[in-house]
């Protein structure tokens, strides 16, 4: 219910919203949680395993219970904590994990079966019969247990990512963080102040204590006004610093648009920031812990601090008849604030017999709350005091078991927190994250005055400077607390509300010897839910310590890992969805190729035409066969711009090429091209390609499309790391030049139709290169062939690519030729036994490819020494050969394995495999390349070919890799 005269909400601006189909009203400044409590909605969900009723428990991001689905349709978002969801007009939220409804949940039957579903029940109960696990038990359990579900549709929301840089990152904008920001801001350093809340101030917005003689929120507003006037301070609200990483990097999630109904505007829903900072102040505060007792998970049982927050910040009392159960002085303030606001407080139960009095309230000192009762919400508590049990009617019990410093980020680089006996909790270890100083209550400072002072100190420590800032006067009460983790007694007392872990589960884990804290966690699932046990881990490990007879520091904590609170994968992966994950590289002929109806296939990031269908052609093979005909019988045009092109210049350019290629390039004449083979240092083939010598000191290297980046990096490695003394420079020019293959018997005739100066066999013989002019455009011509035909590659600056391609295709068309795609290109090269990365698989040597003679004896080169190792020159190695079908089936398939004709198709008999297959329209049969043991020694031998995947089997004959025009006469034209 709303409490008049309280809260920082704007009562002049009401907002309508829906929860589970019912219409309610809240105010600007409300969260979904505060608005629900204001409307007396107590039951907001069901628990994960037992489907027990769940109510709002906290007022912050640590909320274990109030997980709801916000929105509808494809963009609906599950598992939103109602405590951090700001209210906006038209907000629609639904309860989760309940069927048919949160009020009447059939799955609550699980709770009755609880004796069978305790810790480790998965491992004990559903073991036999084995097949039942996958088919029966698991699907049933998965249906019954769970959180909210995604829509199953593509996410329509926009997410973004970004980098930020600063001198000092301050994490948390409570008293400590604000004071730190003020000190650092005035000192003139670049500051980022990040807070997960929509409004900065932290606990100062939730408490009635004054600072500098003013209400806390007034002081906050003054500080924020000053910070906003400083150009060196960037304030980030709704921004959770989720993780601490190496070298001063922090991850932060900004919820940019969650507080609005807008989902299709320009701004992203969320942005994931990577923040690089020189120093950091962790001012993350503390989280209030609970005390376990029977049925302590009933809606209406809440954190005492959260009750103060709802009252003081949102003007809401979560109940009409309030009670408080605590082991510390601080929680007494809850009763005082409620009384001041005119809310009835039935009793304050303090477990300490020597607890102080509170004026105007029934104090039960040395009392314990034994149990909560009520169905879907709290109705009464039973209190044990001096041996007698008393029932007290109440609809909201505020519980406090003390406070735990929020040490999470200090542990992200493997640091372990240290036990502090003073506050019976873990505190950060100094220096656990280099450059980050923990300050304020996350460092164990429990009064506001201590926090304010510590904020200034932390800045001085982080920046190594002295700052002059007056620390205002504030509450400095001592932190008086006596640990109490659980009230002994019968029945289930709950620790982890989200995963339904009870005190008994912990003791059972200890009994069954899951006594290491990490084992206990996994056996019971304590702390493994989306809240990561922020409310309950401390109690659980204290109880484990007790059950195992160890101390808490010896028991230790589980490992804190990023993120601090859940981060959507969409935010982490922002920019990498769809094309962001695999950007498209398009050639200059792309548009024209698509216009011709060519299906484009991905080659790395590039897109290349597969074939160019003509009217009447029903299969790709028909088109491909026709295109191979262009190459073999007239003239074909193919865009080969995707091959890597590296421009190499300098007096030592030839020396570099000699060193990275197995064969000699220093002897290459100007105006000539040579094929080269490149090895890795371990002696295996890395890549191949042609290199042209344009002048004494100027070469253009081509690489395969796939290995262009690797080769570039390799050349950088060789020149910078192995031979920095060489005077040579190179750069990638792949995108600068559009290059087209003109292949076939009519290729020269076609070119002479467009070249400004005609060529002939003498001026441009096989493997020649040189400058040409096409309609005044300066280009380059290479007489090289990947098809075994009389062929050229012509290159022009990319801006002329589109027009040249169209011209070449039009001319070829007129000569009964035309464009050809990857399929035809592949057929021509398989017919000729030319290799691609199907053959250069990373496991083959020059020897395996029959290219051992390309290893020049006159010089050293990368990979040469190790390529001569005994194991790599064994004649019995699998070496490349050609294959043709000789069995009844004429089909050959790449990937099929080879076996002796009289042996089973078993791995022990394996003789090799087929790497590439093509249908040769000229030979009218399949041609294949492959690797076979013994290589050329097997020439003429027949083998079994078995494709176990496609179920194809035939017999093949080992033939020369060059199956078309073995004499090679055609290429010289």
């Amino acid at each position: 219910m709303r409490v008049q005269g309280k809260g920082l909400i704007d009562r002049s601006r009401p907002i309508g919203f829906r929860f589970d189909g019912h219409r309610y009203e809240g105010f600007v400044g409300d969260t979904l949680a505060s608005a629900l409590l204001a409307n007396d909605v107590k039951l907001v969900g069901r628990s994960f395993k037992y489907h027990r009723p769940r109510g709002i428990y906290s007022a912050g991001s640590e909320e274990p219970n109030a997980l709801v689905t916000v929105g509808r349709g494809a963009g609906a978002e599950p598992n939103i904590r109602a405590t951090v969801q700001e209210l906006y007009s038209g907000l629609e939220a639904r309860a989760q994990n309940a069927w048919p409804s949160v009020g009447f949940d059939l799955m609550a039957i699980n709770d009755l079966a609880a004796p069978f579903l305790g810790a480790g029940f998965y491992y004990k109960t559903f073991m036999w019969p084995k097949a039942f696990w996958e088919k029966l038990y698991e699907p049933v359990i998965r249906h019954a247990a769970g959180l909210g579900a995604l829509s199953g549709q593509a996410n329509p929301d926009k997410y973004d990512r970004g980098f930020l840089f600063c001198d000092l990152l301050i994490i948390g904008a409570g008293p400590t963080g604000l004071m730190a920001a003020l000190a650092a801001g005035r000192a003139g350093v670049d500051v980022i102040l990040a807070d997960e809340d929509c409004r900065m101030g932290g606990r100062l917005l939730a408490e009635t204590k004054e600072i500098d003689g003013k209400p806390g929120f007034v002081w906050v507003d003054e500080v924020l006004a000053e910070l906003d006037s400083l150009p060196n301070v960037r304030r980030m609200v709704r921004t959770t610093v989720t993780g601490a990483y190496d070298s001063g990097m922090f991850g932060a999630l900004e919820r940019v648009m969650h507080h609005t109904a807008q989902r299709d505007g320009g701004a992203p829903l969320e942005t994931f920031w990577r923040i690089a900072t020189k120093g950091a102040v962790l001012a993350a505060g503390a989280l209030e812990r609970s005390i376990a007792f029977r049925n302590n998970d009933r809606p209406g049982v809440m954190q005492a601090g959260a009750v103060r927050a709802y009252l003081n910040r949102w003007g809401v009392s979560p109940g009409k008849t309030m009670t408080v159960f605590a082991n510390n002085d601080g929680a007494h303030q809850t009763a005082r604030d409620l009384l001041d606001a005119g809310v009835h407080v039935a009793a304050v139960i303090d477990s300490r017999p020597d607890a102080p009095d509170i004026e105007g309230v029934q104090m039960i000192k040395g009392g314990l709350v034994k149990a909560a009762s009520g169905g879907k919400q709290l109705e009464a508590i039973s209190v044990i005091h001096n041996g007698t049990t008393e029932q007290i009617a109440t609809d909201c019990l505020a519980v406090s078991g003390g406070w735990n410093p929020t040490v999470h980020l200090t542990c992200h680089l493997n640091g372990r927190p240290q036990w502090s006996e003073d506050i019976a909790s873990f505190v950060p270890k100094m220096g656990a994250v280099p450059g980050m100083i923990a300050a304020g209550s996350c460092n164990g400072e429990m009064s506001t005055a201590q926090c304010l002072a510590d904020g200034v100190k932390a800045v001085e420590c982080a920046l190594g400077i002295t700052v002059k800032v007056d620390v205002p006067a504030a509450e400095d009460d001592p932190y008086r607390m006596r640990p109490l983790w659980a009230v002994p007694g019968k029945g289930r007392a709950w620790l982890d509300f989200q995963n339904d872990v009870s005190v008994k589960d912990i003791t059972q884990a200890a009994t069954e010897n899951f006594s290491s804290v990490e084992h206990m966690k996994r056996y019971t699932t304590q702390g493994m839910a989306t809240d990561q046990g922020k409310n309950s881990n401390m109690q659980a490990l204290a109880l484990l310590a007790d059950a195992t007879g160890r101390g808490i520091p010896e028991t230790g904590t589980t490992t804190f890992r990023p993120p601090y609170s859940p981060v959507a994968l969409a935010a982490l992966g922002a920019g990498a969805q769809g094309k962001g994950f695999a950007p498209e590289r398009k050639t200059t002929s792309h548009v024209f190729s698509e216009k011709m109806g060519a299906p484009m296939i991905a080659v790395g990031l590039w897109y290349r035409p597969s074939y160019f269908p003509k009217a009447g052609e029903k299969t790709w093979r028909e088109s491909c066969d026709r295109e191979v005909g262009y190459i073999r019988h007239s003239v074909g045009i193919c865009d080969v711009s995707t091959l890597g092109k590296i421009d190499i210049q300098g007096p030592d350019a030839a020396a570099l090429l000699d060193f990275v290629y197995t064969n000699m390039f220093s002897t290459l004449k100007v105006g000539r091209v040579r094929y080269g083979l490149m090895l890795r240092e371990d002696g295996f083939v890395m890549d191949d390609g042609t290199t042209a010598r344009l002048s004494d000191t100027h070469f253009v290297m081509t690489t395969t499309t796939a290995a262009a980046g690797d080769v570039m990096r390799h050349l950088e490695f060789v020149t910078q790391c192995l031979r920095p003394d060489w005077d040579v420079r190179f750069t990638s020019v792949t995108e600068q030049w559009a290059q087209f293959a003109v292949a076939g018997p009519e290729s020269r005739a076609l070119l002479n139709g467009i070249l400004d100066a005609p060529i002939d066999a003498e001026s441009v013989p096989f493997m020649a290169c040189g400058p040409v002019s096409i309609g005044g455009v300066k280009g380059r011509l290479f007489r090289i062939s990947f098809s075994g035909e009389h062929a050229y590659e012509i290159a022009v600056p990319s801006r002329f690519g589109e027009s040249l391609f169209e011209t070449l295709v039009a001319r070829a068309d007129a000569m009964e030729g035309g464009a050809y795609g990857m399929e035809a290109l592949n057929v021509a090269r398989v017919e000729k036994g030319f290799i691609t990365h199907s053959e250069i698989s990373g496991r083959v040597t020059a020897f395996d490819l029959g290219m051992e003679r390309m290893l020049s004896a006159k010089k050293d080169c990368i990979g040469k020494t190790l390529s001569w190792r005994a194991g790599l020159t064994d004649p019995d190695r699998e070496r490349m050969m050609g294959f043709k079908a000789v069995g009844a089936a004429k089909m050959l398939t790449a990937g099929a394995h080879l076996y002796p004709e009289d042996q089973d198709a078993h791995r022990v008999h394996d003789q090799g495999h087929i790497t590439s297959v093509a249908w040769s329209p000229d030979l009218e049969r399949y041609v294949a390349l492959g690797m076979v043991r013994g290589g050329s020694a097997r020439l003429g031998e027949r083998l079994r070919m078995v494709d176990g995947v496609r179920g194809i089997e035939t017999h093949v004959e080992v033939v020369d890799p060059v199956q078309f025009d073995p004499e090679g006469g055609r290429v010289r034209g």
Partner: protein
Amino acid sequence: MRIQCPICGSRDRREFYYKGDALALKRPAPDAGAEAWDDYVYLRDNPAGWHSELWQHEAGCGAWLVVERNITSHEIRKVTLAEDAT
């Protein structure tokens, strides 16, 4: 993690390509023998502590760097250009 490129300044590690131990700088002579080559190509020490590594600022200036990095803490104490290290 961030790496201080001597040419470009402090950059996110996503801009860098990692090759491995800086031993790769010390290429043996062709006739150094099988053992020396085996050491160079295959054998690496893997101490839990300081390593001397080769990284390339591939998405930046392209420089190969020798980075002294502690693999237990990711602390980087020294970065030099590989061409100055040989």
